[in-house]
């Protein structure tokens, strides 16, 4: 039996990594995991911290906020407050996964299974990633962006570029097309068309602000011609195309930030699923290795120890509680799905008539391809899991003095909890809804944004700062008004220029 073991000691070597990768790849293929080719890179802890701070990208432009992130990570790591996450994986083709030099061979195998097969297959097949990101081009595009921004810094000064990036970063979450599919990224094309675009855009903008029509006409026509004709949710896009005073290079930088935001948009919406999927697969793949006798008990104990840490979910009253752990929830849901397929109970048959008793590999694959966190939870969170997690829902209404427990893990509460948990992962309600509402084209050129309140929730204090950032980009007065639930409109923020 022991003769079959891939490794005996905890030291890793390149040969061992390749062997583990080979075995894991074989098993993954057996389960039908469809992945990009892998590029596994061995790096040091220091390099891992570097990777962290540039949001995991292998190249990125320079900005102080990445430095801040780096210092934060470094400080916590050095003081032992956190271990480095043992994996970073990049949604690119080939899929880049980092292994840290300090890890044991067990951890390396775990990371290979988790990142290079779990995340990788998710990136390749989930509909959000397929629709919104372009794994083939991202690294090239970032190279282009970095070079372009570096050039701008030389030409226009670091300070100037930094201010612009600050403003763009503030709006990053609002630089995303939610409904319209973005065009494919291609660095080469970007470079070729960038000059063209500069000229074209400038001419468009000038056109927008063309001299006023003769006086006599104004009285009749200018009354209410709304611009934009429909409210615009992609603030950065609108600014890129329409801000009157931006120079061409500034528009290009706005565009770069927007593209990067778009790239990360699916990741923000699939945290539970993505981590759950990857965790489920590392668990399944490594267990299969064990069943085949390729790894020993020592390996499994080390693996299970870190696996258990990752999927631990402290209770709400624990001092370690900081919200629901996406690894825990995701892993539990994926495992539960498999259980529903393999050993359904009557309750499962009642709740999930379509999938109870079906082929689990196919069911999981379908779930992975076609959902995001919100819909995944709404679709698949089972009563059994709600009981296992002892989930309960708290209603906090500022018009009442007390909080109310609106649902717990009982027959009456399942649907309620499932719905509010799904809602918790809905980006649309998690982030305030703010759209470009009007531009005063014939007067002071001021820009009006409208915040449509959700459940009477106001904006927090940072809105003031952001309005200033928008004003910097727009160049003229910016107002932010809130549409309250009683249909009143209230001007909440204003930055005069």
């Amino acid at each position, binding site marked *: 039996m022991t003769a079959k073991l891939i490794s005996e000691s905890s030291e890793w070597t390149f040969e061992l*990594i390749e062997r583990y990768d080979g075995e894991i790849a074989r098993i993954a293929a057996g389960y039908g995991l469809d992945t990009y080719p892998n590029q596994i890179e061995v790096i040091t802890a220091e*390099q891992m911290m570097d990777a962290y701070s540039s949001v995991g990208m292998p190249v990125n432009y320079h900005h*102080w906020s990445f430095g801040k992130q780096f210092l934060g990570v470094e400080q916590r790591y050095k003081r032992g407050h956190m271990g480095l996450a043992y994996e970073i994986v990049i949604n690119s083709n080939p899929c880049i996964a980092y292994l840290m030099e300090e890890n044991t061979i067990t951890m390396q195998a775990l990371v290979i299974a988790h990142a290079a097969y779990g995340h990788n297959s998710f990136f390749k097949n989930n509909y959000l990633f397929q629709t919104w990101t372009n794994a083939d081009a991202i690294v090239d595009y970032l190279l282009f962006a970095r070079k372009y921004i570096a050039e701008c810094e030389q030409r226009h000064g670091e300070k100037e570029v930094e201010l612009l990036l600050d403003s763009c970063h503030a709006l990053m979450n609002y630089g995303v097309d939610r409904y319209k599919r973005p065009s494919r990224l291609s660095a080469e094309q970007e470079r070729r068309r960038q000059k063209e675009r500069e000229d074209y855009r400038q001419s468009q903008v000038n056109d927008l602000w063309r001299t006023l029509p003769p006086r006599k006409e104004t009285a009749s026509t200018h009354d209410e011609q709304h611009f934009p004709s429909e409210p615009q949710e992609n603030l950065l896009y609108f600014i890129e195309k329409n801000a009157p005073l931006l120079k061409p290079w500034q528009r290009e930088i706005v565009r770069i930030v927007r593209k990067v935001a778009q790239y990360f948009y699916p990741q923000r919406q699939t945290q539970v699923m993505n981590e759950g999927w990857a965790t489920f697969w590392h668990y399944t793949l490594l267990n299969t290795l064990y069943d085949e006798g390729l790894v020993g008990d020592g390996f499994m104990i080390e693996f299970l120890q870190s696996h258990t840490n990752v999927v631990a979910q402290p209770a709400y009253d624990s001092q370690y509680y900081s919200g629901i752990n996406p690894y825990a929830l995701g892993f539990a849901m994926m495992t539960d799905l498999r259980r529903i397929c393999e050993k359904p109970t009557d309750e499962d048959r009642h709740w999930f008539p379509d999938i109870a008793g079906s082929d689990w590999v196919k069911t999981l694959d379908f779930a992975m391809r076609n959902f995001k966190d919100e819909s995944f939870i709404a679709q698949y969170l089972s009563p059994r899991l709600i009981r296992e997690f002892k989930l309960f829902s708290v209603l906090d209404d500022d018009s009442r003095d007390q*909080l109310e*427990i609106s649902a717990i893990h009982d027959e009456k509460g399942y649907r309620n909890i499932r719905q509010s948990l799904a809602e918790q992962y809905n980006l649309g309600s998690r982030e305030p809804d703010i759209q470009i509402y009007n531009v005063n084209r014939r007067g002071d050129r001021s820009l009006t944004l409208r915040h449509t309140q959700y459940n009477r929730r106001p904006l927090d204090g940072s809105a003031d700062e952001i309005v200033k950032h928008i004003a910097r980009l727009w160049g003229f007065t910016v107002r932010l008004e809130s549409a309250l639930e009683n249909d009143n409109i209230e001007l909440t923020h204003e930055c005069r220029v």
Partner: protein
Amino acid sequence: MTQVIDRRLNGRNKSAVNRQRFIRRFKSQIKRAVADAVSSRHIDDIDDGEKINIPARDMSEPVFQHGPGGRREAVHPGNTDFVTGDRIKRPPQGGAGQGGKAGNSGEGEDDFAFQLSREEFLELFFEDLALPDLVKTQLATLTDFKSVRAGYTSDGVPSNINIVRSLRGALARRIALRGPHMQRLREAKAELTALQPVPGTVDDEQQTSDRQVAALEEEIRHLKRRIEAIPFIDTFDLRYNNRIKQPVPSTQAVMFCLMDVSGSMDEIRKDTAKRFFILLYLFLKRNYERIEVVFIRHHTTAKEVDEDEFFHSRETGGTVVSSALELMHETIRERYPASEWNMYAAQASDGDNWDNDSPKCRDLLLNRIMPCLQYFAYVEITPDRHQSLWQEYGRVADICPHFAMQQIESAQDIYPVFRELFRKRVT
């Protein structure tokens, strides 16, 4: 399908640029933190980097977010005893009982903490500080020389002979001088071989060739002698290693710390004085490779002591400042020749002195001490009115530009005073 790449040797400091940008952007906040740190630290701590705390709000990156208020529903795990419809008191903060984030051991969550390296710390600490006229005094004290290699010379002392160079020259000379002789020698030998007697030749022909052979042999002997006469080595061939002296700026400094330890200097004042000395020490450390510190304490008499005793022992008695100045002058004369040492002095006192001693101090300073010093800084640690010593020192300051004096009241004043003393002078 899978490619494994070893990237460990790739650049490590990808984030260095971003880190620098961060520090530059928050320079004012970081500098404030540095200044705070200095006022509450000891000399051995100062050698390390510094943990800097910056209020997180100063450096937040704003994004649109929901603020508190309105209606929200949150799902939490781990229910133990709630049932539907329970009402609970609203926790003081954080909306729907988000629960405190795991406290990270006493660090305020409002602060962003990070470590400055020692270099970064000192750089910020000393920024736009420089000793007055530093460049000038350095140039003026260019009295130390270092001998460096500077090629070869044809003339020198035997111990400096460079054998390889000399023999190479000799070989070249020998080859050159013997060249023409060697050529002739080869020709003569060839002719000689051609004239070897051939059997069956006529007698008189034989005689002619015998004569020629004799002449040739004579020539060959002569040529060989000429060649042998070329000397193996000649004085002309000798090469010597050449060394020249280059002036180097003196990289050592001595710092005199003078302090009044009479009864009127209490612990708090001593502590303040100590911090002042620390700052001067650190600054010198940055500019000089080697620094010696001489501690001189005094009441009515002065004594050179070690650092511990300097700061911690207590004496009582009156105050005679000139005793310390005299001791310092003696020490300079005995141990620190002005040509080799940059000298700095820092004096801390509460301003007490015997009235008739103060003019003596002034004369001592003006006539004997100030001429050898680079800089003399005097701080008076007192909230009270100045006494005679301050006035007399004032006159010194009028005459000597490298004499500075300041009054400080508490530890918080030190840093600004220090900056004032060593402000970068615009020339």
